């Protein structure tokens, strides 16, 4: 297990959040917002890789790891999509324009964009799991020529819970983007003309070349287990599948051990793992 450098000064510095202000609040769904934050002043802007996260600090409440959901090509803009599920995230979703919060990061390894180059890219997202994958799509669209077929399969609970709906519609409608977008919901009324069913069902009609395809998967862990099995059933090897995992992260820099996942720390060695690198940990209940 690799730990962060044990230099007292560096550690202290790494644990101190930078104070930033909210520039814009975008309402995504009933309980989910995207915070557009004025990034901390850094040379070249706030640089990050798709799939990395920041520790966001709601003053007086606490700190949580939140994936960066914005465009890595726009380092002057820092976006985080937050669902109100606990004390800190609820506080974050109450922030208004001009309010202050703390930021530490970016942390984590991010998605292996280099590995996806020259290949078909299959993106499977469930629920809020689309947020850490949106930077991947931004990156792909900017460097579209570097990838072959790109397909996004996204599952949400209901039509009202679909994240980034307008962008999904935009991406699907733009023929010049050559991006296949399929959305499904678990339940819907008669007024929904999209797909109803689990996201893994969409993979049945996906074009998956067994070689030359890379899959990025993010969502609730059970959904990822099902998605992985489906991808393997269609011939993808475990070396072609990456997952973004979530554990109880506290320090964010591989020191405290709260996010230990087998022999790794998710905050430091993850959150993105190649499936073969985690063996059977995904289905082991003690982990």
């Amino acid at each position: 297990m690799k730990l962060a450098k044990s230099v007292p000064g560096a550690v202290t510095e790494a644990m101190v959040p930078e104070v930033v202000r909210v520039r814009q609040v975008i309402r995504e769904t009933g309980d989910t917002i995207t915070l557009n934050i004025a990034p901390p002043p850094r040379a070249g802007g706030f640089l990050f890789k798709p799939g990395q996260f920041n520790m966001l600090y709601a003053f007086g409440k606490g700190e949580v790891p939140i994936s960066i959901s914005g465009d890595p090509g726009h380092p002057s803009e820092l976006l985080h999509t937050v669902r109100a599920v606990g004390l800190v995230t609820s506080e974050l979703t109450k922030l208004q324009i001009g309010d202050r919060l703390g930021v530490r990061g970016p942390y984590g390894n991010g998605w292996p964009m280099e590995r996806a180059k020259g290949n078909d890219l299959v993106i499977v997202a469930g629920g809020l799991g689309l947020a850490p994958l949106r930077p991947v799509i931004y990156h792909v669209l900017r460097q579209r020529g570097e990838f072959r077929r790109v397909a996004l399969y996204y599952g949400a609970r209901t039509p009202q819970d679909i994240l980034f709906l307008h962008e999904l519609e935009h991406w699907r409608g733009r023929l010049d983007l050559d991006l296949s977008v399929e959305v499904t919901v678990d339940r819907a009324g008669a007024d929904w003309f999209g797909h109803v069913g689990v996201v893994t069902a969409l993979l049945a009609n996906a074009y998956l070349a067994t070689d030359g395809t890379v899959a990025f998967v993010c969502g609730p862990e059970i959904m990822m287990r099902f998605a992985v099995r489906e991808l393997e059933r269609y011939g993808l090897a475990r070396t072609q599948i990456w997952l973004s995992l979530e554990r109880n992260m506290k320090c964010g820099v591989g020191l405290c051990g709260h996010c230990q996942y087998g022999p790794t720390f998710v905050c430091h060695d993850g959150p993105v793992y190649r499936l073969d690198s985690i063996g059977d940990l995904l289905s082991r209940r003690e982990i």
Partner: protein
Amino acid sequence: MEVLEQLLANHPFLLGLKAKHLNLLAGCAARQEYGRGDFLFREGTEADQMFLLHSGRVTLEIHQPGIGEIQLESLLPGDVLGWSCLFPPYRWHVDARALEPAVVLILAGDCLRPKLDADPELGYAVTKRLLNKVHERLEHVRMQRLDLYNVRPGERIP
């Protein structure tokens, strides 16, 4: 007949079925088109056909008084629906509606059942494929029941 046999042979549900069995099934088959919003079948009516979806999209839905129609699952080309026609009491327990223009291959239940009974090899081949579909759909239902995306306090979020 030959065209139907070819369509059946190319349908994912029947891939690999022997020619003699495809020929038997073709004797029960018809090609049918549905417009957007057309019902393939309605809940409570006699289940007399099995449907192999060739193109288009079909939703299975059920009516809940006070709420209206609830969509249970969408079916895509390659899917099969209507296995209620194989088992008593031969009644549909959901509605099936075309969400977009659909082409289906219909197998008549009263023609299909005796052929499956009379030829165990064919019966097993079809039953095995159906079992695989049932297994797949059961897993989907389990996932839907878990309500995975409904994150509650105390749970971790991506």
